[in-house]
């Protein structure tokens, strides 16, 4: 089947997935007892008619199924509703403002995780040393169960407080201003050739990205190592060797085979990455969608939480599609 048709079908399948998650969260949020407005405002002392007025304003007086569909339709149009806590504030603009921050963090984290994970896995495979290999596997498992806030706070303590090298939180220092092009400050500052600002942006992103990247790198170590071992024993490599190809070249060809499961895994673990990103943002006060969610969680802003869930569902759906595409590009067998 053609590549275009494949993408189309996969793209369409994202929609029911999003619906399922939206429904689940909607049901749990709305069906449970308790008035959401009271919960959001945190107080029970509001005169009845004022309460009714607020609920009408927020559209909460309508029957549930109406609310369900109305929200969806509005969302499709780009209106994610208004915050229940900060009254009248549109959620969409908040989320879209914060999206680049989360994106930037995630991209840097993936870069770190692949560099560390695949790097260590590849090197230990090449070494041939059995102890090193066993150690790598253990390292991979251990790193994966590190508690992100613990790791993050440790790094902050060491690099911020004690060594005074790096800032503690946020994306930029208070005095620094970056004119946003993509919203990804590290790129924007490069594009505008602002060296000072670039350094500032990097200094702020390096600890959170490294923290998340290190934890996510664990499975890559094991994956790369195991696959390198397998491939190096495989018939393809034996055949290459029987033709007198140089060992370094053979390693390079072997690596291409290892790349496939790495790409596959990246797609599979993207969901974990998102969860980790939320936790990392919370730890480092990184102004992304993660901290937005957690803030809204504090105040029980149901509408906002709904919106965030849908946004994440879209992100996960799109990224898995992209990963499938990359997979098709790397492995010619899938294409035809």
């Amino acid at each position, binding site marked *: 089947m053609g590549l275009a048709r494949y993408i189309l079908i996969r793209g369409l399948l994202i929609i029911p997935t999003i619906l399922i998650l939206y429904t689940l969260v909607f049901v749990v949020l709305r069906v449970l007892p308790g008035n959401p407005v009271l919960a959001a405002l945190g107080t029970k002392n509001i005169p009845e008619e004022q309460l009714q007025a607020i609920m009408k304003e927020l559209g909460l007086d309508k029957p549930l199924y109406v609310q369900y569909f109305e929200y969806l339709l509005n969302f499709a149009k780009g209106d994610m509703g208004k915050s229940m806590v900060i009254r009248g504030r549109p959620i969409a603009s908040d989320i879209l403002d914060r999206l680049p921050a989360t994106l930037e963090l995630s991209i840097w984290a993936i870069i770190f995780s692949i560099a560390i994970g695949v790097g260590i896995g590849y090197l230990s495979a090449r070494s041939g040393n059995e102890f090193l290999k066993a150690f790598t596997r253990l390292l991979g498992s251990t790193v994966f169960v590190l508690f992100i806030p613990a790791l993050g706070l440790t790094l902050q303590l060491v690099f911020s407080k004690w060594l005074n090298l790096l800032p503690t939180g946020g994306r930029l220092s208070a005095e620094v201003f970056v004119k946003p092009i993509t919203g990804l400050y590290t790129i924007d500052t490069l594009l505008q050739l602002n060296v000072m600002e670039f350094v500032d942006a990097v200094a702020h992103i390096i600890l959170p990205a490294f923290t998340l990247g290190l934890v996510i790198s664990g499975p890559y170590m094991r994956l790369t190592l195991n696959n390198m071992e397998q491939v190096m*024993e*495989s*018939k*393809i490599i*034996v*055949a*290459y*060797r*029987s*033709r*007198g*190809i*140089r*060992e370094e*070249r053979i390693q390079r*060809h072997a690596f*291409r*085979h290892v790349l496939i499961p790495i790409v596959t895994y990246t797609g599979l673990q993207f969901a974990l990455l998102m969860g980790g990103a939320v936790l990392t943002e919370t730890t480092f006060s990184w102004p992304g969608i993660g901290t937005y969610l957690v803030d809204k969680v504090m105040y029980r802003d149901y509408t906002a939480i709904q919106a965030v869930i849908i946004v994440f569902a879209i992100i996960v759906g799109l990224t898995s599609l992209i990963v499938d595409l990359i997979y098709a590009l*790397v*492995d*010619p*067998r899938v294409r*035809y």
Partner: protein
Amino acid sequence: MKEVLEVSDLWIKYYTLSGVVHAVSGASFQLGKGEMVAVVGESGSGKSTLGYALLNMVPKPGKIVRGQVLLDGVDILKLGPEELRRIRGSKVSMIFQDPFTTLDPLRKLGTQFEEFLIEHGVERAKARAMVKEFLVAVGLPERAMHSYPHQLSGGQKQRVSIAMAVALNPVVMVADEPTTALDVIVQRQIMDLIDDIRKRVGTSVVLITHDLALALERADTIMVMYGGYVMERADKKRLLANMIHPYTKALFESLPRMSQKRMPKFLPGYPPDLRNPPSGCIFHPRCAFAQEKCRSVAPVLNEIARNHFVACHLAGGEQ
């Protein structure tokens, strides 16, 4: 005529965690220019290991512990890694049973073939021309070089492997079960191709196979192996006329034939555990003619007639 390949007293062992596997015990044979020797045996007979030894490529944890492999007079077992790399593919080459996994599925055929030639010192433009030439020579269209392996059939893939294996005009080509994974008609085509190469270019071929019928059909010399030992070795005519070793006879009898009215007879029992081989003659547990002596003393290869060697006490294989 000087032999292009002389294997003398080859002993190969695998040092595994569960014990030492005696894969090949004292194999010897010679091969002349343009000749084909068939190494025949069941799985575990050591034939594949022997094949790898001819490129000094016995996989870990295997080791060649004794013997010589003289390729055009040079003992390849004594060569260093760089020299070995140079002769592999150019002086001695190998084709494998499974063409699916011996061509890199992620790269185009032309690219793989060119790289191979370039690694052996052919310059890029000439390499490209050679690729086209050889693909056509083995019966494939030129445009095959732009295809990926999975776009070709099994037979076609095997042809590509053969093309690569003979492109640099090696002295010896080792063919490890080249037709086992192919259907019968394609088998014939591939074997015809190999024969054709032998005749035209003079490449000698070591055919490793479990199929005695195939060996009898195509090879000049036949070497029957069992449990790592050579049981019998003779040129084809002599063998057909007079099979001496009980194992060879059993193998022959297990071949189904059109002319026979009876069912083929299969050999009872199982192949030996090479970590703990039986004493004396390795075949004695399954041999219908085993004597007391067979259980205690291992027979050696004895020349019982010109170019006919047998390792059996009953044929005079005393020490």
